[in-house]
């Protein structure tokens, strides 16, 4: 996207909404910003309608702050709590149907490659655990099999939160949730391992407890998807509303799950992706 396209025509500054003006004047486009710059610039997410203490809201802010090239990024979302925030996100984003996000992203990425052969256009999927691991799993996996150049990010709150807290494939075994009145009967789906085995060049599982780590993983995932092949990042996003804890405890819960090993932080990187990461991050450390 060129800056001139985005600039407000002279004389129209006053009638544009304040948050749009702020975006033009202090937004992240064309700047090298990251999570440590949060608070110093106008974020892509204009407030949000999610619950207090929502892990998704925090993760989404961090993801958007970590995008390496927001001016040329299109996000594909789908039904879920996080989608409620997307009308307030300042990059082009698509909500199609529940679960079809990776198929939509496949078509979109190929279309943008055709139309902008000499330009980087990152396509990033952001979806919940139900959308990614349950209803959309076939399309998620087939986009990986086909080696689509897209990044898939799962916001994992371990339930269908938007519909009132039902069990998802990503819920922990034994957890009592709606539609799992006697506790979930099977283990959490190992999607990072499935991603590794189905062709993702970069896979990471993390939490928003450590923003710099999350940022590094998102950047790696987007840059590897751009150059090499499909990538997957899974982010634990605890849900105070459905798991019934105080909003202020969200971060502690995240740390506890990391500590007790029930949410394992991990990265799987193919040699090809590692080479690219070394090149990119090596250049950076030389600066």
């Amino acid at each position, binding site marked *: *996207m*060129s800056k001139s*396209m*985005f600039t407000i025509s002279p004389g129209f500054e006053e009638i544009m909404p304040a948050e*749009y003006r702020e*975006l033009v004047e202090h937004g992240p486009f064309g700047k090298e910003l990251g999570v440590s710059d949060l608070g110093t610039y106008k974020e892509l997410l*204009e407030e949000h309608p999610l619950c207090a203490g929502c892990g998704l809201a925090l993760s989404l802010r961090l993801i958007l702050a970590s995008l390496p090239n927001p*001016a*040329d*990024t*299109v996000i*594909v979302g789908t039904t879920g709590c996080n*989608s*409620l925030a*997307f*009308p*307030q*996100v*300042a*990059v*082009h*984003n*698509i*909500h*199609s*149907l529940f679960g*079809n996000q990776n*198929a*939509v*992203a*496949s*078509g*979109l*990425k*190929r*279309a*943008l*490659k*055709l*139309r*902008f052969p000499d330009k980087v*256009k990152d396509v990033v999927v952001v979806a919940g655990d139900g959308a990614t691991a349950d209803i959309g799993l*076939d*399309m998620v996996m*087939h986009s990986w099999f*086909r080696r689509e150049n897209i990044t898939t990010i799962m916001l994992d709150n371990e339930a269908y939160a938007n519909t009132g807290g039902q069990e998802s494939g990503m819920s922990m075994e034994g957890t009592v949730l709606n539609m799992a009145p006697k506790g979930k009967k099977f283990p959490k789906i190992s999607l990072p391992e499935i991603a590794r085995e189905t062709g993702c060049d970069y896979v990471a599982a993390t939490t928003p407890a450590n923003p710099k780590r999350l940022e590094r993983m998102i950047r790696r995932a987007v840059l590897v998807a751009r150059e090499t092949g499909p990538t997957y990042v899974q982010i634990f996003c605890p849900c105070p509303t459905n798991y019934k804890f105080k909003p202020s405890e969200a971060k502690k819960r995240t740390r506890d799950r990391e500590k007790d090993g029930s949410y394992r932080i991990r990265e799987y990187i193919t040699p090809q992706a590692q080479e690219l990461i070394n090149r990119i991050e090596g250049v950076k450390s030389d600066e």
Partner: protein
Amino acid sequence: MIEQRVVDPEYLFFSAEREKRFITGSEAVKEAIKRANIDMAVSYPITPQSESMHLVGDIYAEGYIPEYFRGENEFAVMSAVAGASMGGVRIFTATGGPGTLRAFETFPTWAGARLPIVCAFMTRGVNSPLTIQPDTIEMAFMLDTGIMMFHAENAQDLHDMILKAFMIAEKTDIHIPAGVFVDGFFVTHTRDYVDIAPEDIKLPPYNPYSAPVPVMDMENVPVRQMRDPFVMKSNFISYAAHASWQQEILAAAERARKYIDKYMGGLLEMENEGADILIIASGTAVSQSREAIAMARQEGIDAGLIKIKSIRPFPKNEIMEITRKAKAIIVPEFNRAGWLCREVKSTVADTTKVVGGPRVFGGMTMPPELILAEIRRCSE
């Protein structure tokens, strides 16, 4: 890529010298797509559509199409097609029968998202019991999805309607999807003479910025833009926004009438429309009706034919006018639901004149004698 000259749609449709070829309906799809200047196609096999999209794959390999792939199922394919269309390219796909139903959730969203996708539907029966045979039942389900629906009688129609559908669907004041329906097997798997323009010419390219909605490419404002935003808050403004958006989709289809007139010569065609007995049909039922009318004429019975080419928008006013003086209206169909008969009945002033049938389904052919029997009955 193979070099082709871009020509005016009118030239390609009406002026270019055409060669007569003896080809199958599936091959007619290939020949249309060769000249359609599409950017991309996505395929998935289902009988009786499979050959069409594999032939489209062949012309991708030959260099007529920049991008092509096989998806994992119809819902995924129609979703990928939506993503590509939102990314601003001209795209084609095809399916039929159970594939149509598998993908069903996507069609209203194509319309709601104002995507000018052209999809061919090679119709077939729907389970259960399992059938792969000809049947137009899926069209009954598609009637209220918001997409335009054209029904081809033969391979020539199929070829022409696909090309013309792109030009109609992509107009800024329309910009909704178009389905080109054709009776599976009867047209796809049989050979017929088709007049075809030279293969070194093609339609003008799609201009994504002519769309009435923003293209998802971060190259057009506003950047704070979601496709397609929810209007699901529990308040009247949300309800009103959703309601008016839906009305606008229907209005867009209605506005397409002028382009259907221009490119397809009207939403319907008439033969001997002054007759007391009229047959209203679409698809291959038109050909069977024409045979029946010729047989009736030999017996001294006069009957006319109305061939409906556009099911959505539906030629309501035209039918109302033409049928005003008719004594009987026969509606033969290749499905058990009788959806065309319902459409006709919802249009004509006196529904008692409408004879719903003959209807064949489950793969049966429709001998003209069946229609002739109705003509005879109506003439008594």
